[in-house]
């Protein structure tokens, strides 16, 4: 599709205005590749832990139905409960620490005098 477009469309002559980054008609000041507070660094780490845990729970979860029908559900449930309890504990810890807040207090980010 991209190739077909290249054959069909008229050739464009780039202009200075046309090749500028779009900032509502203003001339951009500096590069957009600046150091930037990405904010969700801790959230990303929590995400990885959660996702790995979910991936680890999946095999246990697939065995649960069979265990319920054929006995031995207690063990599987205990295992499942352990996983989930760990996750809940971790979540509470992060919550109390304030890692889940997107706005992390104005005073911390204010420029020092």
């Amino acid at each position, binding site marked *: *599709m*991209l190739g*077909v*477009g*290249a054959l*069909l*469309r*008229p050739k*464009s002559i*780039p202009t200075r205005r*046309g*090749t500028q*980054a*779009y*900032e*509502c008609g203003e001339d*951009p000041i500096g*590069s*957009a*590749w600046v150091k*930037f507070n*990405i*904010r*969700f660094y801790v*959230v*990303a780490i*929590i*995400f990885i832990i*959660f*996702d790995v845990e*979910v*991936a680890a*729970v*999946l095999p246990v*979860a*697939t*065995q*649960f*139905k*069979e265990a*319920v*029908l054929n006995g031995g*559900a207690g063990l599987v*449930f205990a295992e*499942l*409960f352990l996983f*989930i309890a760990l*996750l*809940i504990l971790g*979540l509470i810890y*992060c*919550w109390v620490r304030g890692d*889940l*807040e*997107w*706005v992390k207090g104005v005073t911390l980010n204010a420029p020092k005098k």
Partner: protein
Amino acid sequence: MPANSALFAQSLTQWTQGTWFASVPIWVWALVSALLVIYMLALPFGGIATYVERKIAADIQDRIGPNRVGPLGIFQFAADAIKMISKEDYVPPGGDRFLFNIAPVLVVVGSCAGFVALPLAQYLVAGDINIGVFYIMAITTIIAPGILLGSWASENKWSLLGGLRSAAQIVSYEIPVALSILPVILISGSLQMGEIVKQQGWQSGHFWNVFHNPFTLIAFFILFVGGLAETNRIPFDLPEAESELVSGFNTEFSGMRFGLYALGEFVDVFVMCALVTTLFLGGWQLPFVELDKFMITLPSGLIALIQVGFFLGKTFVMVFVVMWLRWTLPRLRVDQLMGLCWKGMVPIALFNILGTAIWMWAFKGQSMLQVALGLFSGGGSSH
């Protein structure tokens, strides 16, 4: 299911033996089928979805909507496609050319690859992988790097802001989505899409997973809302947020590259709705009909058609709800968005899993309906 698909493959190889089909290497077939998926399923769906969305938007806002191109404006999407193809293929000179080029492709690949594991009908699955659910969860995540790379490569502040928001959002909402899929796996004891749908039939007394127990009902809504956020739809379309960020991550994208982003989004919406349908709404299962009795009386081709019809019907109802929500709800703020995910949906989803597990344990895997029926008949017989 595996036996059936193996049989099918065997008959296919027998049928093609000695003809020129057999001499074609397998990767050509893979390529052809991939092109078929993209051109026969994804593209028409994406195109028609843009048209339908504009019509729905018009109806909700009491406007007429597209009405010039063809009857009722139905060829609007074709005109849009031609326009997008003939537009200037602009790459920002300050940006990263390579990343800029591959980013939209990643989005489309991520969403189209999800099609593979979707069971359209009982014997109509491209690949009924035994880890189907996990596969879809994994492959649709490719969209996040696609958006993030595109936004970074644009060298535009709006794009960067949108892309970073998108990364935080998709990454966060992946968790409630995955956690609300777990109850379904607990119930069905399988990661295979076909198997999960099969168990939601009426004849096994199960009915759809939404109505299996109170916790799956909640899980259904969490999955749906999480899916909305994963696909960047309103009220979670912060990466685009045209009132704050111009157009978010796709500000610098023009022509067909922008088109690929839009296509990827719509296809992703479809895959997400199809996933919800498969896991919770019984996929191709007909409500209140015992499939096995049905199968004997009707030709199998007709059965497959009916099943595809029901599957697509349910999915399109979900897609319609997604579009309806878009024109009904205002956008969330970033901190509200993250708060809703981590402080609302994740804890609820975690307790859902435990709830479903306890329910399964207590009632020997029976659904609400079966338990109620059991109580009813038990109470009746004791008198």
